[in-house]
């Protein structure tokens, strides 16, 4: 027993050391987005107030994440390194949260840790070139608190996540459905109050200081065209390669987009498609949750329920990503801390699908992004494959049999003709 404990701590230390080496020495620091973060941080350092004195397209907590490395160093090169350190710390926090959740799910901690490490490494340097690992880990923290039965804490953390990046909002209906089904509306009210209060505390000052600009920071994305890496754009490019529609990559104001007669209708429909897809996920979750009605009174959730909530949370986030008219490469980071917790019969297949999708994301950006913009077929096909894999992952997540059907290996062997 003592040896096992030392082995586990040793493994954990090794993984943390590996992360340190990779984050600091292997991943390339810097990039254009870091330049933007540095600009915001330096303006804040000079006393300018965001939303009031300068417009910014990020929520308030994101600005805090940009500002923290600036406290350590004011020069750009040092800022890049400090930002990488910050992302590494978020990554390490993610490791501990994954371990905690793995224990609740009764899955092997070592294997979950290995999957998490592989997932982060597969995505590559973008892990330290964007801040998206931070909201991903915050979202995981919200899920961790929720699965431990600390609902108010979970809603507070979720609100912080929402004020970091918009996407954690997709988890709110899942939390809502579960708590409502389990304990009724009356006991849901304190959680909602905690959520709204946190939002008010964070967003209130920003709204007061720069109302129009603050709202604009959330609304700016809605006016974008079909971004080149989105599912819709890849579909148009595929149809173009078959001679069925006309579509071509173009340089847009914020990113590479796709130009096509169908681009505008698809961009306008994207929100509706996303809404319908998310609604389907929530309905499926509601139907599955109704089976847990007997848990009223228990604080922590069972492993089975935890597994279901994790899987559907992942599905909701993945739907948000794939149905969006923008699919920036860093969005794949949002699934990173969750994927090691994917449980059920096909969990290894799910891991493999995600890691392959992460590798293809890295292949498309930054490796061959200019080739994609030039319309090179192999890169375009890699993008199509990546998007198809994310769709496949969503299907696996929502159709995945429960943990009670888990085989010992997670993948069926080639049985004999006699079996």
């Amino acid at each position, binding site marked *: 027993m003592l040896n096992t404990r030392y082995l586990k701590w040793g493994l954990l230390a090794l993984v943390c050391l590996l992360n340190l080496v990779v984050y600091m020495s292997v991943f390339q620091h810097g990039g254009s987005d870091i330049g933007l973060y540095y600009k915001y941080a330096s303006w804040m350092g000079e006393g300018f107030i965001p939303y009031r004195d300068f417009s910014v397209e990020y929520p308030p907590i994101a600005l805090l994440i940009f500002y923290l490395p600036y406290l350590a160093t004011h020069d750009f090169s040092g800022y890049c390194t400090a930002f990488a350190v910050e992302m590494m710390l978020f990554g390490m926090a993610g490791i501990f949260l994954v371990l905690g959740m793995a224990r609740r799910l009764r899955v092997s901690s070592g294997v979950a840790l290995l999957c998490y490490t592989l997932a982060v490494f597969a995505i590559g340097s973008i892990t330290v070139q964007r801040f998206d690992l931070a909201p991903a880990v915050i979202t995981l923290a919200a899920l961790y608190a929720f699965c431990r039965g600390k609902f108010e804490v979970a809603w507070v953390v979720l609100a912080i996540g929402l004020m970091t990046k918009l996407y954690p909002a997709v988890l709110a209906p899942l939390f809502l459905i579960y708590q409502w089904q389990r304990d009724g509306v009356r006991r849901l009210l304190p959680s909602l109050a905690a959520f709204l209060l946190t939002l008010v505390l964070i967003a209130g000052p920003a709204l007061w200081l720069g109302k129009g600009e603050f709202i604009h920071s959330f609304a700016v994305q809605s006016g974008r065209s079909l971004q080149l890496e989105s599912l819709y754009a890849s579909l148009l490019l*595929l149809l173009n*390669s*078959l*001679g069925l529609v006309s579509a071509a990559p173009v340089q847009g104001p914020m990113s590479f987009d796709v130009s096509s007669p169908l681009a505008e209708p698809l961009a306008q429909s994207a929100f509706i498609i996303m809404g319908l897809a998310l609604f389907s996920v929530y309905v499926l979750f509601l139907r599955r949750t109704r089976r847990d009605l007997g848990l009223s009174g228990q604080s922590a959730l069972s492993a089975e329920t935890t597994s279901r909530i994790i899987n559907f949370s992942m599905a909701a986030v993945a739907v948000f990503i794939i149905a969006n008219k923008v699919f920036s490469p860093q969005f794949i980071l949002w699934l990173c801390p969750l994927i090691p917790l994917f449980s059920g019969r096909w969990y290894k297949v799910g891991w*493999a699908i995600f890691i*392959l999708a992460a590798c*293809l994301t890295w*292949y498309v950006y930054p*490796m061959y992004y200019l*080739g994609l913009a*030039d319309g*090179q*077929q*192999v*890169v375009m*096909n*890699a993008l199509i*494959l990546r998007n198809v894999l994310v769709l496949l992952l969503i299907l696996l997540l929502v159709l995945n049999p429960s943990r009670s059907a888990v085989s010992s*290996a997670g*993948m*069926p*062997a*080639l*049985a*004999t*003709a*006699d*079996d």
Partner: protein
Amino acid sequence: MSHYTKMAAYIMSETGRNWCCRGFVALGLVLALVLMLVIPQHMKENSDWSLQYAVQNFADGQFVLDRDTFYLQSGEAQASGASLDQYTQIDNQNYAYTEAPGYIFYLLPFHYVHAHALANVLLAAGAAAVVYLLLRRIRDERTACVGALLWIFSPVALAMLQRAYADTFAAAAFLGIGGGLYIYYCLRRGELSLMAAYGLLFLAGLGLGWSVFANYANTWAVGAFLAHFIYLQTKARLEGRKKEIVFSALCFCLGMLLPLAGLLMYQNAVFGAPLRFGFQYTGLPVGFSWQYIQANIRQTTVAWLIGYPLLIPGLAALVWALYHRTHKNVFGTDLLLLLAGWVAAVFGLYLMYELTASSDIAGMPFIVLARYALPGLMPLTLLSALWLEQLSQRALRGITAALLVWGVIFFAQSALAYPEVPINPLNPWRNITQSQQDSLLLDSARSIYVTSGGVIDA
């Protein structure tokens, strides 16, 4: 009982279901043929042009071209924006076809009846039949049906099936037929009559030998089969079955040596020595070396994932089966290692391929990068089909349908891809004009051969 009720009862019976499975495979072949006819083929590489001219030359009895004839034919091809870069100079006056001639000799009878497309269709039917036979023996007809359809509708298989003037499909089909029959023999060794067993071995050897006759690079994969055969013979020797060793070795080697003898005779006639071959003269970047692995991992693996969607599940199933070798499995460790060797001998070999590692080829359509590994598709198909069969009916149907649709879409993409002519450093006419590219699109279905007697349409 009404007629319809009787029919429904028959279809629901095991015999009826089996015939339905066979019908689906036949339908699949017909659909593949229809797709080949309906979707026009724009993609035509230099190697296709070279083979097209080589077929005509071989039909005229000209294995070696004199300089004047080669320049005439080369100029004609260049006018269409192509280059006969698979013809190489072997001495001051003469040019010869670089690649292995096995497919050309196979294609000749079809050339005489002006039915080139049927050559590959026949091979497709043969290979699909072998996949069906093998999977039916291992599992059941439903798995056999799935496996055969997945093999036919792999994007690269469909694309190369359509290209009658590319030897890739033939190389893969001969290897698949020979290799599949060999594995079938190994699985049924104890059940077959002596004549049937020896006949099977002969045909397996013939298929394997002809696969080398069609593509030199298949030598490594055939080597894996030879190694396994030696293992079987050694095992039989240790078990005291001497008579079996002699006759089985005789049949297998005879089958293999017939086409190889033809190859050696051809090489002796063309290059002056049996062991001399075209690639020893060419200046094209067609070597194999460890130094190209990194570039190929970057450039080619994604093309493989598109062209061979069974690559990942097939490899995963192979690794899984090897890992659980202490458990019962359908192949036995020796056959699993043979399958692993087959995959490694093709995919591993082409990870070291100089041409696909070249930066000149980086922006090409995926089929240009992926087609070479087609001979390694069959073991992946067998293993994937056995793994997929474990799923529920609904999941199996959904995944199979999705893979078939994937195959058709990316076949269409490769067929309609703009015919980029790979840059040939030896070709002074590298930069073809837009009008030449347009005429290439229009003229891809037509070919003209210039002989000393004038211009003829082929």
